[in-house]
């Protein structure tokens, strides 16, 4: 091992030339010896060549690197580094390599030899040798001195003269040496986790735990769930709080970078870059998802409501807001409404036309029945078909309209033949029963909107053979072991009243067979009398209307095509409880009063409306104003003395407290609306709906109506008493 003595390399400033030479010699020697050696530190195998190419410190002019300290003698006093440059380990491997590293080199095995470093001599004072023969005096002197020194050393121990004392060495002058490393790469990352981010991730975790806890699940189901979760994952990126994706809430609104070319007025967006199959599938998934349908549905409602803001406000008894209009068109209807609202025009009750429910699908079909949903008073079911027989049977329709969308029906159900009766269930507010002209009874579930009825009576042996004229859902008091269930009762022209129950399948039970009863003159009512003079076609009467008593669910009224009304009970299926004679033609509609429990009203094709009391077989009073058959009538839900009826030519609103001779409002029909076929009051608004033979349902608002009497029952009672008195008087005087 070569020992390069430091003192050799320390060159005194006074003799640079000689020193340089000796240093050069030394370094040459060192170089030669070093070729086979690895110096201190670790060198890659390639580095040896680098070492050999190294020059010595002086030749390179190494001193220029350090701050120079020239002393006053003109020489250099710059402090030398501890290690020569040759010895230093270079961390900058680029300098040591002659050729750049290739991939292969990185893979190649590297031999590393670790060897002992060179010894660094810090102080080396050579002993001076004196020959006693040549320099005898000097030798004597030195011997004496050596002896004296020995004695001194011996004396030193324990001698008071000598005290151990510490000394501080002078502090060496320090010099800062700057060095530079490669720049440390820095990158900043930040993300915000909002409160709901955390909430979402916790929810997801909880659900996952719940799912894992279910042991009953098979592996298949678990795998399906995992798939679903994975499928959700790209969309769930929004919610993960710690993922630094561009979809996280902190990085929102990233602009689309691909330019897109749009198609025609209503077209797909064609990307200039062709979309991958995956992206296309994703798009399709969005476009066909049921959620999009639902959203479009709601938006359509919003759009229509925007347009018909004023009309709806009137319907709901809200004040009409006058908007600043930038367009020119102003609807006459809303303008008229505004004017009326402001001026409070005429004082007499009248109707204001609001809107009409009409769509191309129902054009040309007559409205046969209209019913409000029992739970949601904004939903109206309208049935379309024919009342009379026609040689070519058209298909029938049932549409569910809503106040919220006056342009488009929200549900449309098509049936094989015209629909003649409708009723909403109370227990299940989404079940709609429809009675058809061919005698069938269908029950639809409007939640799904599917065209298939939930129940139908096609296969039932008890189905009707004639058009179903009236349907009603009745809540039955149950036996001890049954819960109150709702049954559907249908009355039809074939003379039977049938009760259908939906608990198990579609069961039927015949409630009543309508038998013909001859019209009896005033006197004790008789039952089941055959008149020999008449040749009867059938002993059965055909029912044309029905109404259940709202207070007593066992009792119901049936109107027949003979003109007779019968009170029946569910408990008896052979006999009538009571018969009412007053009409001479088919009774189209019979309705109990919502305020007085034993008063009902009926209308018939004989141009009259009769008011009855349950215990009188003759009508209390008869009303009529035109020579047309009256097709339908409806009690006002707000006022006990007001009802509306429609005949072929006009709509009439009667107020019995005011007059039983004339209606208070008449609204004639025009050519394009055709004859009116059905009328219905609205429960939650002062409005009236009228259906006509062309398929339109018009909505009118009642204005300036007399306010409802404080005691409704009493008011109606008074009317009845008055009517009876006048009748008595009339009969007495006659």
């Amino acid at each position, binding site marked *: 091992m070569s020992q390069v003595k430091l003192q050799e390399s320390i060159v005194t400033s006074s003799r640079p030339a000689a020193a340089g030479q000796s240093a050069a010699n030394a370094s040459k020697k060192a170089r030669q010896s070093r070729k086979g050696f690895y110096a201190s530190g670790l060198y890659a195998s390639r580095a040896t060549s680098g070492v050999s190419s190294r020059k010595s410190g002086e030749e390179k002019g190494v001193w220029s690197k350090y701050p120079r300290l020239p002393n006053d003698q003109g020489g250099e006093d710059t402090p030398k580094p501890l290690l020569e440059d040759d010895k230093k380990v270079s961390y900058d491997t680029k300098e040591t390599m002659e050729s750049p590293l290739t991939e292969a080199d990185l893979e190649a095995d590297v031999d590393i030899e670790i060897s002992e470093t060179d010894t660094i001599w810090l102080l080396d004072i050579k002993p001076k040798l004196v020959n006693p023969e040549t320099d005898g005096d000097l030798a004597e002197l030195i011997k004496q001195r050596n002896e004296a020194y020995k004695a001194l050393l011996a004396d030193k121990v324990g001698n008071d003269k000598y005290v151990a004392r510490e000394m501080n060495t002078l502090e060496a002058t320090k010099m800062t040496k700057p060095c530079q490393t490669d720049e440390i790469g820095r990158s900043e990352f930040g993300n915000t986790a909002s409160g*709901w981010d955390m909430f979402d991730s916790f929810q997801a975790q909880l659900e996952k735990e719940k799912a894992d806890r279910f042991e009953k699940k098979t592996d298949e189901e678990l795998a399906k769930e995992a798939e679903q979760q994975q499928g959700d994952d790209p969309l769930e990126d929004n919610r993960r709080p710690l993922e630094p994706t561009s979809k996280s809430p902190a990085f929102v609104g990233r*602009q689309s970078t691909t330019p897109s*070319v749009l198609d025609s007025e209503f*077209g797909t*967006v064609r990307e200039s870059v062709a979309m991958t199959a995956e992206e296309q599938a994703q798009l399709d998934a*969005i476009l066909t998802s049921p959620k999009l349908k639902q959203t479009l549905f709601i*938006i359509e409602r919003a*759009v*229509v409501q925007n347009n018909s803001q004023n009309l709806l406000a009137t319907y709901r008894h809200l004040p009409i807001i006058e908007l600043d209009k930038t367009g020119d068109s102003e609807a006459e209807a809303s303008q008229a409404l505004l004017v009326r609202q402001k001026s409070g025009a005429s004082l007499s009750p009248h109707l204001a036309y609001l809107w009409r429910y009409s769509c191309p699908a129902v054009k040309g079909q007559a409205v046969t029945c209209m019913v409000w949903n029992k739970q949601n008073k904004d939903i109206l079911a309208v049935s379309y078909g024919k009342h009379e027989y026609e040689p070519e049977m058209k298909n029938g329709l049932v549409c569910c309209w809503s106040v919220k969308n006056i342009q488009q029906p929200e549900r449309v159900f098509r049936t094989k033949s015209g629909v003649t009766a409708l009723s909403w269930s109370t227990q299940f507010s989404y079940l709609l029963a429809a009675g058809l002209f061919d005698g069938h009874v269908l029950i639809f579930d409007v939640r799904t909107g599917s065209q298939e009825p939930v129940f139908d009576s096609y296969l039932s042996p008890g189905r009707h053979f004639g058009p179903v004229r009236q349907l009603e859902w009745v809540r039955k008091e149950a036996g001890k072991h049954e819960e109150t269930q709702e049954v559907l009762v249908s009355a039809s022209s074939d003379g039977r009243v049938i009760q259908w129950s939906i608990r198990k399948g579609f069961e039927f039970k015949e409630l009543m067979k309508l038998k013909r009863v001859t019209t009896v003159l005033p006197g004790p009512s008789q039952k089941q009398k055959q008149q020999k003079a008449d040749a009867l076609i059938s002993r059965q009467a055909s029912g044309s209307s029905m109404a259940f008593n709202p207070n007593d669910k066992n009792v119901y009224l049936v109107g027949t095509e003979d003109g007779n009304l019968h009170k029946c009970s569910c408990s008896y299926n052979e006999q009538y409880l009571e018969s009412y004679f007053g009409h001479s033609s088919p009774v189209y509609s019979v309705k109990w009063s919502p305020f007085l429990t034993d008063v009902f009203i009926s209308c018939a094709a004989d141009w009259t409306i009769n008011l009855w009391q349950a215990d009188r077989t003759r009508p209390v009073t008869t009303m009529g104003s035109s020579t047309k058959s009256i097709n339908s009538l409806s009690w006002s839900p707000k006022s006990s003395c007001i009802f509306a009826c429609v005949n072929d030519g006009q709509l009439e609103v009667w107020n019995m407290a005011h007059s039983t001779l004339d209606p208070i409002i008449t609204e004639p029909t025009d050519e394009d609306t055709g004859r009116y076929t059905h009328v219905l009051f609205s429960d939650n608004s002062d409005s009236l709906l009228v259906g006509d033979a062309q398929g339109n349902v018009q909505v009118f608002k009642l204005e300036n109506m007399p306010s409802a009497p404080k005691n409704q029952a009493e008011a109606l009672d008074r009317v009845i008493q008055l009517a009876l008195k006048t009748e008595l008087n009339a009969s007495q005087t006659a």
Partner: protein
Amino acid sequence: AEVEETFKRILAHKGVVGVIIVNFDGIPIRSSFADSSLTVQYCALIQQLAHKSRSAIRDLDPGNDLTFLRIRSKKNEIMVAPDKDYLLVVVQEPCDQP
């Protein structure tokens, strides 16, 4: 098909200026605007606004979520129905006739 039908119906309503369906990336899938730059502008701005309002609603109560957003301005009304994977935007001008 039903989606297409409803789409066309909405466009046919009075006052409707345009309808856009945007996916969650901000790329318009369907648009009825002839001007593509307008579509892209609407997409970007409305999406930001919808995200912001959804943030606000959920910060107030994490159990809540935004279902519908309506912006009424002097000249028209923008209705936004946000969803997890898409955004439906309808622009309508006011007019009284239904």
